């Protein structure tokens, strides 16, 4: 990433974070200083922090997974990782209740690992785009159906309402503790993924050449998969499944790194954080009188982009 692009990106992210803390302005201008402080610290800060780390986590793991599969359409949501994590969270909640964040995150990490293991088994480590997407689609559909089944069989009639958050994602009403619970693994795994950047760049020369240059491909693959699952799983446990950010952020980020897939991890993390903050601003400022699930916003913005990307690949292939 060139210095200028990098500075622009950091500035844009800083602006989005400030906007995310201050908008809408009205509650902060309330005569009651204590209330304004509570809004800022108790409500907005965790929400902004979650949008920051979850977006960054999705971007970074999306970039790493795309580099690993050598495929610009791989991402934690399209490969079924996030829906697997959501299934894991809902099943855990079914067993232990929603008030156990540790159990929930273990459940969602296990769900995500299961989904990714299934994907590797179905599509193989060097999957063609079509195989990868079809396998991911099948896994997502299966995880979605099982999640709905778990909800349908749930003893509490409110289970569906509770689980709604896990299906479409939500950053609202999370405490600072919960935000920290997602942020710590996310920051650690993003840092470790970034250390894999040079090896993932060399992987762009092909697996055999990367091995001949001295990279341990088996270890690299294992690291990327485990780090992505851990980081994304922890975020899903707190905020539910949010789609498309992990797909889009790396595609933009690679434009800033001349196509280097590994070097794009940092940029993808910044762009992912920016995107999720912007999506949350849309949720907050949309004049609908009620709250949109954030996953709906990212899907509404992301799906057309995804279709455009697929069409773009088709044109290039047929050209």
């Amino acid at each position, binding site marked *: 990433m060139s210095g200028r692009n990098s500075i622009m990106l950091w500035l844009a992210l800083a602006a989005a974070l400030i906007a995310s803390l201050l908008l809408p302005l009205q509650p902060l201008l309330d005569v009651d200083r204590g209330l304004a402080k509570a809004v800022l610290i108790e409500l907005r800060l965790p929400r902004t922090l979650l949008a920051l780390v979850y977006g960054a986590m999705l971007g970074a793991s999306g970039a790493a997974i795309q580099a690993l599969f*050598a495929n610009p359409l791989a991402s934690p949501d399209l490969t079924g990782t996030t829906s697997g994590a959501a299934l894991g969270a809902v099943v855990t909640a079914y067993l232990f209740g929603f008030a156990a964040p540790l159990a929930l995150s273990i459940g969602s990490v296990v769900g995500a690992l299961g989904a990714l293991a299934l994907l590797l088994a179905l599509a193989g480590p060097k999957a063609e785009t079509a195989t990868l997407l079809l396998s991911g689609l099948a896994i997502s559909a299966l995880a979605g159906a099982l999640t709905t089944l778990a909800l349908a069989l749930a003893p509490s009639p409110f289970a569906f309402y509770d689980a709604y958050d896990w299906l479409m994602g939500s950053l609202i009403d999370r405490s600072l503790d919960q935000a920290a619970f997602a942020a710590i693994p996310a920051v650690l795994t993003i840092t470790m993924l970034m250390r894999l950047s*040079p*090896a993932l*760049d*060399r*992987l*762009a*020369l*092909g697996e*055999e*050449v990367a*091995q*001949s*240059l*001295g*990279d341990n491909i088996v270890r690299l693959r294992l690291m990327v998969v485990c780090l992505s699952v851990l980081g994304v799983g922890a975020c899903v446990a707190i905020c539910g499944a949010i789609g498309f950010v992990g797909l889009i952020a790396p595609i933009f980020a690679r434009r800033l790194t*001349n*196509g*280097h*897939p590994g070097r794009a991890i940092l940029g993808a993390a910044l762009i992912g954080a920016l995107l999720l903050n912007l999506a949350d601003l849309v949720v907050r400022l949309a004049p609908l009188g009620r709250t949109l699930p954030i996953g709906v916003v990212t899907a509404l913005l992301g799906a057309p982009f995804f279709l455009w990307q697929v069409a773009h690949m088709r044109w*290039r292939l047929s050209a």
Partner: protein
Amino acid sequence: MLEASDLAIPGRLFDASLRIAAGELVCLVGPNGSGKTSLLHALAGIGRPSGRVALDGVDPRQLGPARRPRYLTYLPATRDVPWPLIARDLIALGGGEANLPTLELGGLLDRRMDSLSTGERSRVLIARALAPRPKLLLLDEPTANLDPLWQIRLMELVREEISAGDRAALIAIHDLDAATRYADRILVMDRGRITAEGLHGPHVAAIFGIERANGAWRPVRPSADPRSSR
């Protein structure tokens, strides 16, 4: 300079041992599936080969990405590049610098790999393998996709590269005439083993099923095809 012994990859390569002296250009010939690529893989540390490799006393397979390209580089037979990198960046990722005037890459260096023709892509990939100036060049079908002039230029370039300093090349190649013309030595592989050194009429007929007649290679006549009687 290179001493390798008992190299093996289960099912594909069996107890191959070879030595290459400094300045030597060795060609590796053999029918499809005879283990040429597997031997190159075993030397380059691709997969999990067993056996010993010493290159000037060092096992290059123990070295990481910072040092290994100074010892050896490997050019695979495939010309596919999974990501559309810019040619210059691709060469840099291989651990070398893109300053090889001999390959005439000038106009190609700033283009994306997916905008190049197959032959141009080949030249960039070859430059990637040559650029770190390794002690040992492992090239799998380097002349594939190149036009006749470039085939000659490439083999002469490799010759020239390894004649300077303590360097050598091992080249897997199907073109027996090119092998004869450019190699100091020819190793013949068959069914996962190095079976002979040099191209000798009866042996070539036995392994490849071809013979020289009136200055051209022709299939050995079916009745005498030794491969059918194996």
